[in-house]
């Protein structure tokens, strides 16, 4: 809105009295909400198809080039998963973090950045998305400041943000986002590296991230940054132990280090789905039994076998990401953090790396514990229903929905991690160490020992029973642990005041 220059024009342009916006009609709002969310879900499904199609496109290009070296699928998945899925999700999370925090605290969140140069987007907050653009522009145009003391280690100073940034994205290489399937006549799978040492790769790369933070703290030539770097390295090293040991429980359950095999074992195989498709016209549903379901109805997700493992992995993952309540390395209100002396895009790389790590941790949790891309119970019927839609096979359509399911599960885990951020006060440094070494490490060791023993004693079904019992125990613990009545809380407050 242009500002009128003369007082008369200024006053004349305003209404006599306060502006009260018209109240929107409830039904209109309801329709808008439903349509908006449907469009969003449709967009995610379309995006899932784009990921598959992009990978297929790269394979096709690979067939045209004589010297392919067999990396065309890897390149396609790198583009679709790492560059699009992780990068875009991480970028959007910078905004989602602020916006979701606002929703949890009954605020509207950032909405003042607007794309007023585009006529039909004038004065539209667009859910705060333009703020991302504003942030990026701000970071790009900031001075790239290097402190005097860091000049001696200038190379290391510049290397640190790269070391924090790169591993976060490289970690996603072993996360399987879709099953292996035939898509337009080529075998593809949305996973960059299908390797035998999948989980070991997670451990190895997670350790590299420590170097980035430690180097940043050390080369900044700043006491507070050094303190942050020390805290970060101590915290990351401590929690990597738990992170590794919880995954050991998972690899005992699945008997493999490969994440794609782990994902496959949590749902129906392709052969079973093909059988479902071929039986479609001949016989009833009962001919195709989902063999992956435990006891005939329970999806065999990692979370079922390893509840303690999953919760510990989430907690350790949150500590690895250095987000609240484990954000002493940053400690905005006290030491600002190991990236204190970084400015411009280098600071932005630390910032983005944090969110990319969140995405990756959620992706790994989804792949190992939440059934990866599998949609429980519905897969055979989806294959049968979609068989032949637009000339594509039911398996290919299912894969699109499976990628969609993976993204939704991943977003759900990210959301939980963000809720955790506001539910817990920040731990003190000694509390973090105590939690890591004296509580989580023993529990994860016991979990590994128990899982191994039960697998030897009672096999896979025994593990399932152990998981069910653990879930029930956790639920009892949460639901029936004593809870102070409201009146006692008020009384407690006054007595503490008196005591002071």
């Amino acid at each position, binding site marked *: 809105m242009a*500002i009128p*220059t*003369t*007082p*008369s024009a*200024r*006053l*004349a342009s*305003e209404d*006599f*009295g*306060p*502006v*009260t*916006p018209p*109240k*929107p009609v*409830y039904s209109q*709002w*309801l329709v808008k*909400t439903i349509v908006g969310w449907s469009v969003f879900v449709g967009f995610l499904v379309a995006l899932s198809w784009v990921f598959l199609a992009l990978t297929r496109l790269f394979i096709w290009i690979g067939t045209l080039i004589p010297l392919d070296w067999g990396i065309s699928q890897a390149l396609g998945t790198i583009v679709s998963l790492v560059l699009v899925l992780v990068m875009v999700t991480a970028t959007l999370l910078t905004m989602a973090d602020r916006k*979701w925090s606002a*929703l*949890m*605290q*009954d*605020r*509207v969140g950032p*909405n003042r950045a607007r794309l007023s140069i585009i006529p039909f987007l004038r*004065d539209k907050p667009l859910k705060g998305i333009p703020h991302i653009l504003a942030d990026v522009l701000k970071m790009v145009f900031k001075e790239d400041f290097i402190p005097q003391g860091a000049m001696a280690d200038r190379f290391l100073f510049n290397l640190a943000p790269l070391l924090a940034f790169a591993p976060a994205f490289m970690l996603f290489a072993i996360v399987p986002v879709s099953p292996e399937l035939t898509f337009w006549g080529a075998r593809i799978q949305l996973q960059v590296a299908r390797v035998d040492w999948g989980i070991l790769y997670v451990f190895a790369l997670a350790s590299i991230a420590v170097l980035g933070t430690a180097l940043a703290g050390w080369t900044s030539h700043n006491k507070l940054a050094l303190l942050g770097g020390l805290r970060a390295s101590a915290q990351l090293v401590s929690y990597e132990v738990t992170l590794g040991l919880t995954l050991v429980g998972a690899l005992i359950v699945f008997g493999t280090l490969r994440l794609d095999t782990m994902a496959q074992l949590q749902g129906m195989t392709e052969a079973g789905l093909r059988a479902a498709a071929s039986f479609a016209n001949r016989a009833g549903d009962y001919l195709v039994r989902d063999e992956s379901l435990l006891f005939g109805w329970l999806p065999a997700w990692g979370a079922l076998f390893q509840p303690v493992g999953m919760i510990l992995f989430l907690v350790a993952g949150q500590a690895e990401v250095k987000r609240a309540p484990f954000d002493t390395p940053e400690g905005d209100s006290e030491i600002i953090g190991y990236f204190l002396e970084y400015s411009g895009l280098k600071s932005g790389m630390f910032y983005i790396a944090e969110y990319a790590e969140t995405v990756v941790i959620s992706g790994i949790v989804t792949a190992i514990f939440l059934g990866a891309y599998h949609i429980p119970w519905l897969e055979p019927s989806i294959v049968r229903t979609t068989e032949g839609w637009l000339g594509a096979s039911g398996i290919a359509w299912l894969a699109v929905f499976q990628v969609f399911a993976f993204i939704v599960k991943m977003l759900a885990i990210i959301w939980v991690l963000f*809720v*955790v951020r*506001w*539910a*817990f006060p920040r731990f003190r440094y000694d509390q973090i160490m105590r939690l890591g070494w004296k509580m989580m490490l023993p529990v994860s060791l016991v979990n590994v020992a128990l899982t191994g023993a039960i697998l030897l004693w009672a096999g896979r079904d025994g593990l399932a029973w152990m998981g069910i019992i653990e879930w029930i125990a956790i639920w009892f*613990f*949460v*639901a029936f*642990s*004593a*809870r*102070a009545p409201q009146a*006692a809380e008020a*009384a*407690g407050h006054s*007595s*503490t005041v008196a*005591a002071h």
Partner: protein
Amino acid sequence: MDKARDAIPVPETDLSIGQRLYLREAIRGMEVLAKHFWRNLFGYRDPAPEILERKGPGVNLVTTINYPEERKPYPPGYRGMHRLVPRIDGRPRCVACYMCATACPAQCIYIEAGEYEDQAIEKYPVRFEIDELRCIVCGFCVEACPKDAIRMDTGTHAPAVLSRPLAVFDKEALLKGPAVEYPSDALTYGLPLRRPEPKEPEGPGVTSKGEVLR
């Protein structure tokens, strides 16, 4: 020995075992956050300016008023921007008596008087300017006005300006809002000119200094 043991201060706590175990309370905290999140995400935003009036099924809990687009009305007695009250014929009620300018402690009112040639009301303001940057919003001008010609009932505050001259509001800018009329007004305006005939003084006049005029 017992005394020594008692001397060690044991941290007192009112927390029950369940609260000290932390997990239960942590999950309760997350429950609260999740409840607020979903209610605000899917909630219907009622833009009623009074927050307490925002109720009904599905109304979200966000209490923010998006200021430039939405405004909370000021209370009825609020002293806001001045306005020059118009007569029913659109001219200002002001008779340029300078009472407001005299009463103004901040001296923010500037008036230049002019004369009507054709009306019983003799004076009107040729210029009437208020410097809103000097104004201390005390309302003395409204109190002082004998003709109810200046009011502060616009319900807005002085707008932000980009340079100081823009904060000086002239007659055209101030003259707005509903017209006001009193029954006695009909006796004074709209009537034909009544100009008394000049008469010869009957006796000698006396000035204030005691001089006799012939």
